[in-house]
């Protein structure tokens, strides 16, 4: 049976379970799945493995991309286009327009998206809220203010770790929530110097400094799932994290809306900061593999596969034309919010995970926010550092 090697960095249980739906569907078509998982370093290890393999002229059949990776590799001329399949199946129309830039290189479709995560969620413990006698906050000011009450009740207001990406998740949310979607696009996506050095940006950092006050001292080296565990146990009240955290609650048998809350980070115009996992196919000589690549693309875009996959992964389908009625409450909320955001032009690529700017730039945001968050840098300095860093990386 023809095999296709898939390079990916999904190694956790829920990820693997989701991946198995694709694997099984592929097997049903008569193709084998050869697993090449490389975890760690937020995909950095995988990137390095990929570069080595490309350098040695031995690329994998397919690879799981996030952010601009697919497009970037396509720019190096190593990807296959999937235009024929796209035209035959009319895939493009089913994909949210804001996602298209991440799977298309010019006119060519170079990857197929399987899911969509939302990054700017707040996960909250109802028990903790009740204990401190507070409700879901509607603005960041409220959220910050509730911190005092929570602390008084012996609850950590905000659970998080000090990894740069965890801090950046909050930063992304703050930029969009305080500056609005357009400001986000200008500052984080277009890297407009004026926006970057604006007062709004300073305000974002000021708020971030206040958020720091909500976090306990033990946040060093804390894994995000450990932080989620604090919400589950009621030791902490809230966590700002993508919807991959949801699995942790469900695994404990907790009910959304009852035992825990999921709501978007507070804002006047709630944004939808998305991540998309997609599969791209590398140019290879072996026609058998090319065939398998086609099969894999079809499987990934298959509505039932997307449906099953996302129920296991905690995300929602990349296709916008699917029903999610049998998904959990948070997923349904996500689905509805997405529709609204598409209308409001509030669909934003999650900068933390590479959906805004090129990695060399998004890393600068990570550097600055992380350094700002753990240290005692002033907002002015942070803004200046941001501008310098971005300019240096250009």
């Amino acid at each position, binding site marked *: 049976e023809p095999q296709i090697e898939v390079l990916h960095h999904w190694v956790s249980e829920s990820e693997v379970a989701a991946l198995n739906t694709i694997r099984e569907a592929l097997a049903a078509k008569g193709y084998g799945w050869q697993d090449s998982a490389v975890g760690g370093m937020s*995909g950095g290890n995988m990137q390095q493995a990929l570069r080595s393999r490309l350098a040695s002229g031995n690329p994998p059949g397919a690879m799981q991309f996030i952010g601009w990776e697919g497009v970037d590799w396509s720019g190096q001329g190593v990807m296959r286009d999937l235009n024929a399949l796209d035209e035959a199946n009319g895939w493009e129309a089913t994909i949210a327009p804001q996602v298209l830039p991440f799977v298309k290189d010019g006119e060519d479709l170079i990857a197929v998206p399987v899911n969509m995560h939302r990054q700017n969620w707040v996960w909250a413990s109802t028990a903790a809220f009740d204990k401190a006698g507070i409700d879901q906050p509607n603005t960041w000011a409220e959220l910050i203010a509730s911190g005092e009450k929570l602390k008084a009740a012996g609850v950590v207001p905000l659970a998080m770790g*000090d990894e740069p990406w965890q801090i950046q998740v909050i930063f992304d949310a703050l930029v969009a929530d305080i500056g609005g979607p357009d400001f986000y696009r200008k500052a984080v996506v277009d890297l407009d110097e004026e926006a970057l050095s604006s007062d709004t940006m300073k305000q974002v950092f000021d708020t971030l400094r206040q958020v720091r006050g909500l976090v306990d001292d033990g946040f060093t080296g804390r894994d995000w799932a450990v932080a989620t565990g604090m919400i589950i146990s009621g030791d902490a009240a809230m966590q700002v994290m993508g919807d991959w955290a949801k699995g942790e609650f469900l695994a404990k048998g907790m009910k959304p809306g009852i035992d825990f809350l999921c709501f978007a980070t507070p804002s006047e115009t709630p944004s939808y900061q998305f991540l998309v996992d997609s599969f791209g196919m590398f140019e290879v000589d072996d026609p058998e593999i090319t065939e398998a690549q086609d099969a894999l693309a079809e499987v990934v875009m298959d509505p039932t596969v997307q449906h099953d996959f996302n129920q296991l992964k905690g995300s929602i389908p990349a296709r916008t034309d699917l029903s999610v009625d049998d998904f959990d409450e948070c997923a349904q909320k996500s689905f509805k919010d997405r529709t609204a955001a598409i209308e409001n032009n509030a669909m934003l690529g999650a900068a933390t995970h590479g959906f805004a700017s090129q990695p060399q730039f998004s890393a600068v945001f990570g550097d600055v926010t992380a350094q700002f968050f753990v240290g005692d840098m002033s907002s002015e300095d942070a803004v200046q550092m941001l501008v310098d860093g971005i300019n240096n990386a250009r």
Partner: protein
Amino acid sequence: MTRKKSLSARLAEWLPRLVMVPSLLVILVGVYLFIAWTGWISLSSSRMVPQYDFVGLEQYYRLWATPRWHTAVANLFIFTALFLAVTIAIGLIMAILLDQNIRAEGALRAIYLYPMALSFIVTGTAWKWILNPDLGIQRVVNDLGWESFVFNWITQPNFAIYTIVIAAVWQSSGFAMAIFLAGLRGIDNSVIKAAQMEGATLPRVYGSIIVPMLRPAFLSVIVLLSYIAIKNFDLVLAMTNGGPGGSTEVPSTFMFSATFRRNQMGVGAASAMMMLMTVAAIIVPYLYSELKESRDGH
């Protein structure tokens, strides 16, 4: 006057040189050609994949304009200096203590040496917990009743690099101990007796006479520890992943993330060249003096 030598005789004469050829060849390619390649990349505009163009020293300017690189360089020096000093001190003390006709020497030696067997990935994780104020030492001491005890260096950007030093010292001091012990075992006992006859106390005997005699052992310890310090990569990743706030970045992690996470291959190559130049500046004079000495000596 001299007759022509037979072919086999000539082959025998050249055989020693011939057997060196494969090693030399792979080293020339694997080390020097690749260094040259890296050097070239550092002068190119490479981002995601190698580009073979020429942009001058642009990547070096960029590198030195990156605050994280400054942190990395500063950290490398802090780390190397402290790591060497503390590891040598502890290794030496352990070796001296173990050299006093200790009963369970074998077992103790094994205990001090075993961390060397573990990978940094493994031990870094363990140390991360031990040093975590909420989980590790601080918590244990607090639970024991000393509430005000604080040991939260790993959370402090200004102190986190020292926690990496702690873990690295733990990992390598047994090795230093082994080398020093080997050196001590080679010292003529009568020197110690002579010093004692002159009335020197034991600390004085060690301080003035024995430790200076360990020069060769010091040299090899320094070489091997520098090697570990410069290559320090896994440990930082496992313990702090460069954090908090990028405060524990070191050149090797910088190089890695520039090349593989940030699509700045040119900057990564430039940082690699900077590291190589630093190493060369230290090692080449040392090698030169050592080899010259051995030429004179034998």
